[in-house]
């Protein structure tokens, strides 16, 4: 009996050899399959460094508008680099007092990380051209609102949310704030630690749905699966959740968003 078992084993080994090329094929999924969206989901390939994607929750189709970020200088000369100036913590939150343009910073990407940075230069560009009607705009891991304010809840399933936004009326919401450190748009000198950032207002709370950390290198992406409530100037509310930040090919910042609007 044992002898026959051994012979069977040998035959099994020989048969397995006949696979010759690929014995694991059935273990994997087809990356060419399209992302299948459920009711109340949006998919946006926001991986481009130079595009903002504007979302209007009122339109059910074609609701994402891609707008290129102006990176070409308005004036041909860059301002002088300044070793000591760091404008990133300006208390003035107004876009009017901050000229539009590319704020290039040096980041200690191979050392202490993003927290250690230094202003390098400024290149004035045209302001960001916004479309007429939009609610939020996404660029990689950055999110803006159209005059809205955002609250992070402790909910992580849409079905768990209270029936209406009334439940959050007394909560403290956070408006968009000026930022010239996080909206990375120019990567040509990245290996030297220099990254060009678009100076623009973004919402720090909603942007926290996808955190990018350096160190480590390559950067660590962490998804925050909490649901965020956005209060818009027209007194409407939206509930938003980042469901996924990668596509089937593993490209990061391809966002699948769960949304409920109006909420």
């Amino acid at each position: 009996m044992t002898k026959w078992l051994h012979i069977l084993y040998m035959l099994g080994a020989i048969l397995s050899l006949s696979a010759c090329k690929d014995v694991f094929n059935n273990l994997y999924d087809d990356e060419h399959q399209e992302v299948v969206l459920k009711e109340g989901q949006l998919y946006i390939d926001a991986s481009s460094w130079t595009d903002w994607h504007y979302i209007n929750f009122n339109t059910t189709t074609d609701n994402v508008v891609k707008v290129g970020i102006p990176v070409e200088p308005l004036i041909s000369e860059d301002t002088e680099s300044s070793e000591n100036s760091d404008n990133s913590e300006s208390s003035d939150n107004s876009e009017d007092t901050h000229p539009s343009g590319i704020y290039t910073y040096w980041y200690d990407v191979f050392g202490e990380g993003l927290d250690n940075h230094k202003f390098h230069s400024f290149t004035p560009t045209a302001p960001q051209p916004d479309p007429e009607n939009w609610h939020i705009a996404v660029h990689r891991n950055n999110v803006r609102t159209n005059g809205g304010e955002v609250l992070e809840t402790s909910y992580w399933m849409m079905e768990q949310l209270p029936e209406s936004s009334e439940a959050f009326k007394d909560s403290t919401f956070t408006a968009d704030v000026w930022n010239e450190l996080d909206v990375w748009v120019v990567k040509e000198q990245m290996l030297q630690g220099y990254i060009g950032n678009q100076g623009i207002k973004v919402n720090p709370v909603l942007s926290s749905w996808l955190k990018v950390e350096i160190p480590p290198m390559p950067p660590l992406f962490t998804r925050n699966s909490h649901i965020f409530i956005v209060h818009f100037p027209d007194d409407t509310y939206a509930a938003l959740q980042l469901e996924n930040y990668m596509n089937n090919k593993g490209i990061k910042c391809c966002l699948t968003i769960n949304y409920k609007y109006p909420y």
Partner: protein
Amino acid sequence: MKYYILYILLTGVTPMCHAQENDSTFYLNDVVVTGTRTPKLLKDTPIQTRLITAADIEKVDATNVVDLMQQELPGVEFSYAMNQQLHLNFSGFGGQSILFLVDGERLAGETLDDVDFTRLNMANIERIEIVKGASSALYGSNAGGGVINLITKEGTKPWTLNANWHFAPRNTRQEYLWNTKGKKFRNMLNISNNNNDSYHLKNASNPATQVVSTVYGDSCWSIKDQLTYTPTDRLKIIGRLGYFEHEVTRTIDAPDLYRDFSSGLRMLWNLSKQDNLDLAYTFDQYDKSVHYGITDKSFRQYSNSQNTVRGVYSHNFRGGDILTVGADYLYDYLMNKNLEGETCDQNVYDAFAQYDWLVNPKWEVVGAMRYDHFSEGKNSRFTPKLSARYQPKENLNLRFGYGMGFRAPSLKERYYNFDMAGIWIVNGNPNLKAEVSHNFNVSADYTKGNYNITASAYYNDVENKLTTGIPHYAQAESKQLYLDYINLDNYSVYGGDVTIQARWDNGFSARLAYAYTNERIPHDKDGNNINNQYIPARHHSLTARADWDKQFTRRYGLRLSINGRFLSSVKNEAYVNYYDITKGVNTVRYPAYTLWKLSVVQRFGTAFKLTLAADNLLNYRPKYYYFNSPMTEGFTFMSTFSLDVERLFKQRK
């Protein structure tokens, strides 16, 4: 003597059991096969071979092959490459030019340029044979810097079951080895699991180059089974199957998954007292994929499968000469999402012959030559090797030789097109030539009483080294950098090493080994500095080990071991500005360091063994965790518990 060797080869009985006492101290009567592809006693092989035995592995208390090689062999350094893939530098040659074999078979796949070292677990290793210097005349491509052959265990007892559990602050490991043996069949099953936690490292400010701040955790499973059928005392058939899975969490929601399936069938046939035939078929597939936890989907980026058929015939002449002839066929298939068209394949044919001429009892000369043909690029390569051994006295051996090595451009190096995070596009080059090395070596080993000393020196002239060149823009106005694979200008690697070993009757033994390596940093064909992708070899390195072993009573024994290594500082060149190479290169200095480990092995009866080890005794913590720094956080305590189940039953009897 040759019948003794043949007996060992066919029965699989471990050579140590037969070693004569006076030579067993330094394993000189152990059989090695890698240098000539025929079994030879270590003391008689004309090709200088370094042997690491299972006993050495146990003494070093190595957790994996990386630990083992660094602790046992001076001139070995593993460092990180991109994405914390491990890269080997062994006496000035990178992992691409050191051929790793398991029971004589190549491994499919690569991590970045090296084999996946996590596949090489130590649980079922009987011995490791290391042959430095070009060996392409017997092994073909990738053997320019040497061959490292891991020989697995074959059970000799009716049954054994060994279990090992290892615990360290960031590492747990469990290994099971089960052997059964009948009249004609024997089987060896090995299951192992290794887990490492992620951890963060604190670097000081202003590092000179890239540092590591987070070491990625991983989890690895390996299952191997080998069945040996010996229908007659002249025929042995070996079937084997293996599965390996390695998960590395570089991205929390999308861990990388490495899989390998290997199988093989081998027949060793003793045709007559003089003639032996070795036929083998091997299949090995290595995959890289990502598992997306959010969607529970797995997508494959890379797959390399290799089918190899081999035949080796050897004839032993009456005077002691041996003729060996053989041929291989390899079908190499590559799927890589970064290849144009995603897949490519090639056929590799080769034939080789070797004549081992025992001129007289003092002189032995071995000549080998090999012809390889690669269908992709229609590359052909002829490689010779000539080695000699002179034994003026019984305890003194002098060896010298010349060998040619080569490395054919891989399918990746020919056809790659990879956007590296937007930094640059790594570009394959279909016009690459094979990298060729000419190796000249000389060595001597001398044994007297309790002492053995080995010294060797080598010089390598390397032509057309394959690597990535200078980053460049395709057009002047372009903002996209490209990094092409190129052939570099000639350069040299030379060095030498000395090993002194001693063993006394009172249970003490010691080994001290020093290596000097000079790896000249090559330039491109126009004489330009290149950004050396990997950190070159350190000039000076030293490994040391001392043991004391005593069996106090029938039920209690103790072994104390201390081992350590020292590596000198090394310099490498990096561009001041990758986007403007006219600004030249910076010299980055990587500091020297030394690490020491103390282990105490307690044997309780014959079945239980408890190892307690204190690693990094001097509490060394790098100021900067550069890619070639030890990723240690300081002093660490670890323990291993080992149980031989079959001995429990014997004890009861």
